[in-house]
């Protein structure tokens, strides 16, 4: 069964798959971000991936495209796992939301927005989830100053 998912995705989206990786059944597919909604629909409806286990972002500054969206999917029907990644440019940090497909994407995407400043288009309620109102910037971006603090109340001394 090795690489079955990779081959399926490659055949289905020949123009969108940028890169694939397979290590001991741990399959990863890198696709163009424009193809994400179509790929998500395909994964969910045809390959039986009913569970979005994780959704996060990595910042590869100074590389461009700078960000990478990383999603981990699981199919409880077939016991498949798949990692899907999408490069996202720093100058255009937008990507389609996965909330129409997996409701669980909601808070993951809010966290990714909060920490990395990626805008998920079509998200029903894209607000910060961890940091407080009035916090400026996105702290897990590699160019967020390491020592920068944003206190809510004045500190003593």
């Amino acid at each position, binding site marked *: 069964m090795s690489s079955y998912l990779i081959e399926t995705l490659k055949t289905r989206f020949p123009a969108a798959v940028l890169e694939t990786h397979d290590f001991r059944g741990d399959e990863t597919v890198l696709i163009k971000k424009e193809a994400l909604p179509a790929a998500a629909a395909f994964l969910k409806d045809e390959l039986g991936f009913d569970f979005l286990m994780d959704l996060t972002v990595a910042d590869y500054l100074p590389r461009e495209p700078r960000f990478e969206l990383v999603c981990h999917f699981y199919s409880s029907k077939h016991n498949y796992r798949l990692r899907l990644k999408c490069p996202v440019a720093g100058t255009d940090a937008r990507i389609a939301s996965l909330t129409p497909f997996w409701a669980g994407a909601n808070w993951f995407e809010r966290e990714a927005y909060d920490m990395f400043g990626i805008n998920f288009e079509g998200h029903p309620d894209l607000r910060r989830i*961890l*940091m*407080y109102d009035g916090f400026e910037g996105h*702290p897990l971006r590699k160019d*967020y100053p390491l020592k*920068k*603090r*944003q*206190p*809510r*109340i004045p*500190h*003593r*001394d």
Partner: protein
Amino acid sequence: MGLETLFGHSYLTTRLDEAVNWARKYSFFNYPFVTACCGMEFMSTFASTYDIARFGAEYPRFSPRQADVLFVVGTVNEKLAPVLKRVYDQMCEPKWVVSFGVCATSGGFYDNYATVQGIDKIIPVDIYIPGCPPRPEAVLDGLLKLQQKVSTESVLDRKYR
């Protein structure tokens, strides 16, 4: 307290200090402000093996208005800082603060965008207990140190800090 201000630093006041401090230091009512993993050691200190009741401090009050020692146990982040300040402000004098564990004391290893680098940036602290987390023996040691500190205070000099 009232009358002692009339007497100043006299024999009467020091005798009164002794009585009041004795009562205060053996009947701490604490407010546990527990935010993280240090809470486990806090519970262990309160449980039968270590039995903080031996020192008269076994009674947690979950209202700051009824407590006189604030135990800040665990990591405090910037989001939580106003809450901690508010809890402290709600406590009546006399009040003391114990910073429990390195996170509360200095931010610990969380030197990052979210964590307050020591709760003394927010409120005054009387005793710091080091450790990640501190062992119950260290907590009891901290409590004894606080008792010592209380016994040196005078009813005259406790002001709003």
